């Protein structure tokens, strides 16, 4: 134990400084230096806008003109009684309920398959599955719209050819199918990240447990049922929560594929906020009100994120018990 501790804190041992806070910070000064650019950018592009949006949410302001009126919590009460906001909130929840289980299960199965040491070309497959993650959402949206087009689009053509359907389906133009289609494209695009998380989780399962199980004569199903699943369950909770938070915040994909249409069928909360703040062609921009909606939604997502933090703590305790 003493050895590992000495190894784990070489910096302090070398510089001879005891464990004071100041000493530790000074010892880790290069870490802070390297973190500085990311911190600055984070402050400018994440922290400042968040704080600013709290300020804007208390104003009745279009975002362009100079007449700002302080209205206190009026925007919030308006948002809470706004049926369009709740409708879009419901759609966001629906989207999450469709996308996240699909994503979690699919990426788990793929991770499980890719974790098997016997599979050759694992690295290539991993890369292939991860590629969609690094593509640009907006471009993916445009390309997918073309692929899904009901007029000579390849996907419809293939379905017609194989006689799965008899008439082309307007995936993105039919309010009944639009949200599901978006969810599937989202799942395809996010598969890679979830898969990596699952792979990490799977690799924390000690190999000896598998070997022991095999020598005891367990088959694959029993191995996974009694060893893999319980071991990664805590991770699974975290991964599902991460996926949930991500899917609640989907925007670029939706905006580029349907812009919230048809007839508001895919107007998720972020798309609604964007409409309010900038893009609506029929109404004047309302940055103040949009900020209030944004704050309310942000708090909701933060609550889900807090669940994740609680899940992390439970996972730690569960792992220690394993």
């Amino acid at each position, binding site marked *: 134990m003493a050895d590992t501790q000495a190894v784990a804190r070489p910096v302090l041992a070398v510089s001879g400084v005891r464990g004071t806070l100041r000493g530790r910070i000074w010892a880790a000064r290069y870490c802070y230096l390297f973190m500085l650019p990311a911190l600055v950018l984070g402050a400018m592009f994440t922290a400042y806008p968040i704080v600013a949006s709290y300020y804007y949410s208390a104003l009745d302001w279009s975002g362009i003109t100079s007449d700002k009126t302080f209205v206190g919590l009026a925007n919030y009460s308006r948002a809470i009684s706004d049926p369009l906001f709740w409708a879009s909130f419901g759609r966001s929840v629906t989207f999450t309920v469709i996308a996240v289980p699909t994503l979690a299960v699919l990426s788990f199965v793929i991770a499980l398959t890719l974790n098997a040491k016997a599979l050759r070309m694992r690295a290539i497959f991993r890369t292939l599955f991860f590629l969609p993650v690094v593509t640009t959402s907006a471009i993916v949206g445009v390309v997918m719209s073309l692929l899904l087009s*009901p007029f000579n689009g390849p996907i419809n053509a293939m379905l017609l050819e194989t006689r799965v359907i008899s008439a082309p389906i307007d995936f993105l*133009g039919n*309010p009944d199918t639009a949200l599901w289609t978006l969810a599937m494209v989202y799942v395809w695009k996010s598969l890679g990240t979830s898969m990596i998380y699952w792979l990490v989780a799977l690799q924390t399962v000690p190999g000896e447990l598998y070997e022991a199980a095999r020598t005891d004569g367990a088959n694959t199903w029993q191995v996974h049922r009694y060893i893999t699943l319980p071991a990664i369950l805590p991770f699974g909770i975290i991964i599902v929560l991460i996926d949930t938070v991500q899917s609640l915040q989907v925007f670029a994909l939706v905006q580029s594929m*349907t812009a919230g249409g048809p*007839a508001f069928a895919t107007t998720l909360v972020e798309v609604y906020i964007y409409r309010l703040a900038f893009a609506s062609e029929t109404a004047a921009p309302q940055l103040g009100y949009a900020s209030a909606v944004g704050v309310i939604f942000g708090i909701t997502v933060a609550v889900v994120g807090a669940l994740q933090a609680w899940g992390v703590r439970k996972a730690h305790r569960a792992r220690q018990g394993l």
Partner: protein
Amino acid sequence: MDNPRTPRSQMSRRSFLWTSGALAAASGLGLAGCSRPETPSDNATGALAIPSQGASLPEGDVTFRWIDTGGLRAVYWEEFFQPRWSKAHPNITFNYEAQPPRRIAEVVPLGIRNGTVHDVFVMPNTITAAQAVAEGWVRPLDDLIPNFDEWKGAFPEGLFLEGLNMFDGKTYTLPIESAANYGTALYFNSRLMEGAGYDPTEQLSYDDYRDAARKITEQGNGQAYGVTLGAEPRILNRQIVNMATIAGQPMDEEGMDLRTGEFVFTSDEVMEVIELYQALNADGSFFPGVVSLSQQEAYASFPQGNAGMVFTGQWVVPEWQKVDFEFGLGPMPSPSGGSGNPLGQPPVGGPSPFVYADTPNPEVAGEIMSYLGSPEGVRFWVAFTAVGEQPTWPDILADRDDPQVQRAIELAAEAGVDQESPEVQAAVALGETTRVAPQPAIRNPEIAAVSAVLQSPTPSFGEIMQAMLVGEVGDMRSALRDLQDKSDRALDEAIATVQQRGGNVSRDDYAFPNYDPTEDYGPDQYAEL
């Protein structure tokens, strides 16, 4: 004459008097020439130069940036203006940018806020000109254009209107953009239309229109459909409002009958148009996925023969003439065929250029705006960009014997804008059927304040129409009644807000009892009120 060996600094009194007299005479002639149609400033080889307007231009290298909505304007700026400008002023780079209206609505307000906006920009459709003036984002042309009063005097009567392009007595933009066009004409694919057996150059009835669409779809066999459109809310709004106007219920883009100042979404004419669209939808005559198309996508793919008919405007004509595609155009259908009411349009319209208040190159802006608003400038502008609008200068291209007119038409044709082609002539003829409609903002410039605070109901008329197309509206009549009530309430609330702030506006400002949709509404009619 003076001794050639006399240095200039030792000019004799006689030569000094001679020279200054000559200069005075020349400038007098030049000034006088400003307000008359000028002889073309061609040089001997016929290449056109941009005449100097008299502004004192900067000497060093500057870049001047201009942004507008492009289309045919881009052709004008890039093919005609830029080469001649850089020849005349090699030190001043004229940097032109074209963006669709949606992008302008994003780029310009941001640019204003961080001071990087172009020197001249067109007003985004989310801000009114009045707002921009009140915020101090744009500067008047009065002190930018050399010999401003003469320049302004050369324009035809009634184009400079307080509340439209003038604010607090100062002029902010020039009225060279016309809105008097037939922006939703029925453009058809000649080949497909022949197969269906109709001639839309004569006004079709609703039944004929529906039948033609059905026949085209049948004969198209999955590759061609009767009607295409970009079913964006804004486009649906415009199409249905225009069809209702032609059917006898004059409506402006907001859904208001300007004779009474009331919203008329629940009128029978509107219901008939909606039923027509529903019938087309049920027949399967709409191009698949219209709800996901933008208007640009719809008419950009039209030449590929995927649809028989589309409602669009004259800006497509030069594009379609470039590709080998046979098309024709006619008026929108009316309920029983035969001419209906004319479409009403504002007297001046379109995306007008404004000069940024903090532009580093106001003199350049003045020079270019001065040229653009001179008779010669307007002639070339109209030749290149107006293919069916009624230019704000009537008959600016009418005199085909005028060499400058000929030159303008020639140059435009070289750039692909053929004023003499039958399609453009047809578009011009349709444009001539439109009439000027009254504008509340001209009658009472304070109405602009109402527009600024108006919270239009959501879903809007166009959005309800889009929902109708995808079958999401159960009871259309009650949806429209709802919309009408909400629109009324929203307008009354906005008016009340402005009144509270001390504005002098009322609901009556929207009612024009002396409005006859078959006649132009001019300054005399405003005076009668």
